[in-house]
């Protein structure tokens, strides 16, 4: 016989983005209790975290526990004492032979406990063990902490309530329906739980809520937005989309501004017309079943109108002062206390664009790049910084490369985001990020663990991505300091980002990245090209054996502490495999490894088969080591193949 478990933690509204990680945590903590079960299902709405498991035993099986007592040679008193402690007579003990000798022992029968009891003990800890980014207390100082107050708990094992108390809430079989459409107290069982919630306007499954939203928008051409959809799925218990409209006159404002208002501030989907242009409509997702009288639609339309009016007001006010006239105002905007104002940053960026090979346009874009920080529109919609500057630069007649560079300056904002669309923009974005990175590292603002308040990892990742994907052949060392001592932390920091980019984002193998990075790069474009070559080479049957031989060569050289190069004395070469290898080497030296590999490999194999490098004659030995070292150098220009992990 087995029974189902239902655990529902009823709370006040949990922030949408914390819900899924919390469910994962809840599941992990439950599994840690090692209570046997056949399956688990996790669900959540903003007001409940739910764990349902099937196939729990009502009682754990009995088990035996062996308790070792005194040695057989121990005085009878000690044996009696041990027996008394176990609650048995000395006759009940058995004598066992162990590696250390003969000992008394007692086999204790431990009865399996009722699972209900175990759960009653474990669940409070499981619940309070869920970690959240920010927690609160609500029952008073020193009270339990959770993301929001816990208001009810359903804990059922089969038909039985698993009894416990947490934060002054007693577990029971009462859940709560939708705040306005459902009943406040609903009796449930493990089997009718989801259905009963449904009766009370709570759609428990996120998948079902997602589908309800998607179905409700089926007739409308919305701009797809998965992140917004997820937010709405976890912000509602009974989502219902409605379509509203706004005055087409607002379409004169830039789309970017309109979409930001709708998406970030109102959580609306924006709508496109058949040509893909923004339509004067939006879709809002309500947390109720219907809007027959249009109250919700009209309310949302009014709010949006007010927001758009504000945006238009800011847009028009900002036009009164050109970006170029705002440059001096940047002296009053702090970039970072130790790194001065944005005016100072701007000046450093202009100088950097020169170092990066930027032209007049790049310098111009750098000069104007931060001016939008003084505009009303950016103060209101901070997420539009850069974009707003670009839009203003465009209406103020700046050349296309300049306004586009300003617009794109914060790109790429993630690994998936594109890099700035033109070279000027790439240079300006590099200048911005490099200035931030070198500045922060200089004054000790270095990211540690998960703390990275200045988003330096993202900045460095952006630099790597722009250099590689923009095919910009600049040596990173020239940009952050060539000498290792100049900026060792920043160099290590960048090395991590470079590895991350090629491995995790571009999908090159771990050892390929190691092999290519072990050889000095002119720049990241060169590194990328070599990685592509190594990846291709790896497909050849000769590659791994040759890599293994290279590793062997390196070991031999290291053991001999040999670094010598120079002329090879042909007279000292043995005819046969050694001479053959030498001749082959002479023929293919200077050719790319791709065309040499199939010819080189058999010669190397044969050489190691037949030739003793460590020859008794010191001159011969020296000559052999020189040949190996010369060859290793010759064929290690694209990668250090000895870094390749081979199967053998």
């Amino acid at each position, binding site marked *: 016989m087995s029974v189902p478990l239902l655990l529902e933690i009823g709370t006040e509204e949990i922030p949408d983005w914390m819900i899924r990680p919390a469910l994962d945590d809840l599941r992990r903590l439950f599994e840690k209790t090692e209570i046997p079960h056949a399956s688990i299902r996790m669900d959540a709405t903003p007001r409940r975290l739910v764990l349902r498991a099937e196939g729990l035993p009502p009682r754990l099986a009995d088990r035996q526990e062996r308790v070792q007592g005194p040695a057989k040679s121990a005085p009878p008193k000690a044996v009696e004492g041990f027996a008394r402690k176990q609650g048995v007579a000395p006759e009940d003990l058995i004598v066992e032979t162990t590696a250390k000798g003969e000992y008394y022992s007692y086999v204790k029968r431990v009865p399996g406990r009722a699972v209900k009891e175990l759960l009653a003990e474990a669940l409070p800890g499981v619940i309070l063990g869920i970690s959240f980014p920010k927690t609160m207390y609500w029952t008073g100082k020193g009270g339990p902490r959770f993301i929001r107050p816990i208001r009810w708990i359903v804990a059922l094992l089969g038909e039985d309530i698993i009894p416990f108390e947490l934060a002054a809430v007693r577990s029971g079989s009462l859940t709560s329906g939708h705040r306005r459409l459902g009943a406040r107290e609903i009796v449930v069982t493990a089997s009718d739980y989801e259905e009963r919630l449904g009766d009370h306007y709570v759609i428990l499954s996120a998948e079902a809520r997602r589908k309800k939203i998607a179905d409700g928008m089926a007739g409308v051409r919305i701009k797809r937005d998965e992140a917004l959809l997820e937010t709405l799925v976890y912000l509602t218990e009974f989502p219902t989309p409605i379509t509203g409209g706004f005055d087409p006159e607002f379409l004169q404002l830039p789309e970017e501004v309109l979409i930001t208002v709708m998406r970030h501030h109102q959580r609306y989907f924006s709508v496109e017309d058949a040509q893909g242009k923004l339509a004067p409509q939006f879709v809002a997702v309500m947390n109720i079943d219907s809007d027959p009288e249009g109250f919700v639609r009209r309310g949302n339309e009014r709010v949006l109108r007010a927001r758009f009016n*504000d945006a238009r007001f800011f847009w028009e006010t900002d036009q009164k002062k050109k970006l170029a006239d705002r440059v001096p105002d940047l002296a009053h905007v702090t970039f970072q206390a130790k790194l001065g104002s944005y005016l100072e940053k701007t000046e450093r960026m202009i100088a950097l664009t020169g170092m990066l090979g930027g032209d007049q346009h790049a310098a111009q874009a750098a000069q104007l790049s931060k001016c939008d920080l003084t505009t009303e529109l950016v103060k209101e919609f901070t997420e539009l910084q850069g974009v707003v500057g670009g839009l203003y630069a465009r209406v103020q007649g700046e050349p296309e490369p300049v306004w586009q560079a300003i617009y794109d300056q914060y790109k790429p904002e993630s690994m998936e985001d594109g890099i700035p669309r033109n070279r000027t923009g790439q240079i300006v974005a590099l200048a911005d990020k490099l200035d931030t990175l070198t500045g922060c590292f200089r004054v000790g603002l270095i990211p540690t663990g998960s703390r990275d308040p200045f988003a330096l990892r993202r900045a460095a990742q952006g630099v790597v991505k722009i250099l590689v994907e923009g095919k910009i052949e600049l040596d990173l060392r020239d940009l952050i300091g060539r000498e290792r001592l100049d900026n060792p932390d920043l160099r290590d920091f960048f090395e991590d980002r470079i590895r991350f980019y090629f491995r995790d984002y571009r999908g090159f193998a771990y050892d390929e990245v190691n092999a290519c990075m072990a050889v000095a790069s002119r720049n990241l474009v060169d590194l990328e090209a070599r990685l592509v070559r190594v990846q291709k080479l790896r497909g050849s049957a000769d590659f791994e054996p040759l890599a293994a031989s290279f590793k062997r060569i390196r070991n031999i050289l290291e053991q001999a502490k040999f670094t010598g190069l120079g002329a090879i004395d042909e007279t000292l070469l043995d005819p046969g495999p050694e001479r053959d290898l030498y001749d082959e080497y002479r023929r293919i030296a200077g050719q790319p490894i791709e065309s040499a590999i199939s010819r080189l490999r058999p010669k190397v194999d044969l050489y190691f088969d037949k030739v003793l490098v460590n020859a008794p004659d010191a001159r011969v030995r020296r000559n052999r080591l020189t040949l190996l070292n010369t060859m290793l150098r010759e064929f290690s220009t694209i990668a250090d193949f000895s870094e390749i992990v081979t199967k053998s």
Partner: protein
Amino acid sequence: MPSFQEIIFKLKQYWAERGCIIQEPYDVEVGAGTMCPETFLRVLGPKPYRVAYVQPSRRPADGRYGDNPNRLFKHSQLQVILKPSPGDVVEQYLGSLEAIGIDLRKHDIKFEEDNWEAPTLGAWGIGWQVMLDGLEITQFTYFQQCGGIDLDVVPAELTYGLERLTAFLQVKDSVYDIDWTQGFTYRDVRYLDELQYSVYNFELADVPTLWKLFDLHEGEAGRLLKLYDPKSTEKLRFPLLPAYDQVLKCSNIFNTLDARGAISVTERVGVIQRVRRLAVGAAQAWADQQQQQTSEAAQ
């Protein structure tokens, strides 16, 4: 359709029925109802308290000369403090919306994460902005810390934006068009406040004078707080409340200087620290006074 003042009456009535003391607005300028002693000081210590009041809240930088339909230099908050927060506090709050005529089966209510923090007060809490058909109508906060002190008892603070709420109920696009009462619009009552304070805050406020005033109020608050002696047997006589008024004065002058563009970003942090230090000092003295009062009551 309820007028502005009827909405206020109904909300006060609703909360009075739930055990709140109905207070009048505090008579020193504040930027938010939270700063009034009825909230800032009363949330400290273990004593239960329930209070509701309307507080005109001054935000010099938000003034728009009476031109912007949604932005005000001085808006009215209805501030409710329930200490400790009852288990059904959200239901009680939703009930207050129904009390002013909002049928919540026909409107969309959402609770969106919004944690509140006031660095000048050393205060923060966890909570939501409450959205009604896409409009933020209330800030709902469980206080966790005030004046840098972890709270013994967690109060719920509900702050209703009364102009917005009324505009919503009266279906008006501009707060100036809402009916304050029959025959008087909000514009009739408040337009000149908005216009004249915008002119003062943005154009005419004399910066050196304001700095002087700031220094004077800061000096007076600091002077008083230094006199507080926690060992004194007569510490309840210590003029903590007047000292706190001086802190509020500093805060308002700081906001005016800020609107005037007289505080650079670098200076800002420093000035906020100065106000915070005083606010924290006042909170600590109050908490200490309360302790004495509690122990006297126990004897």
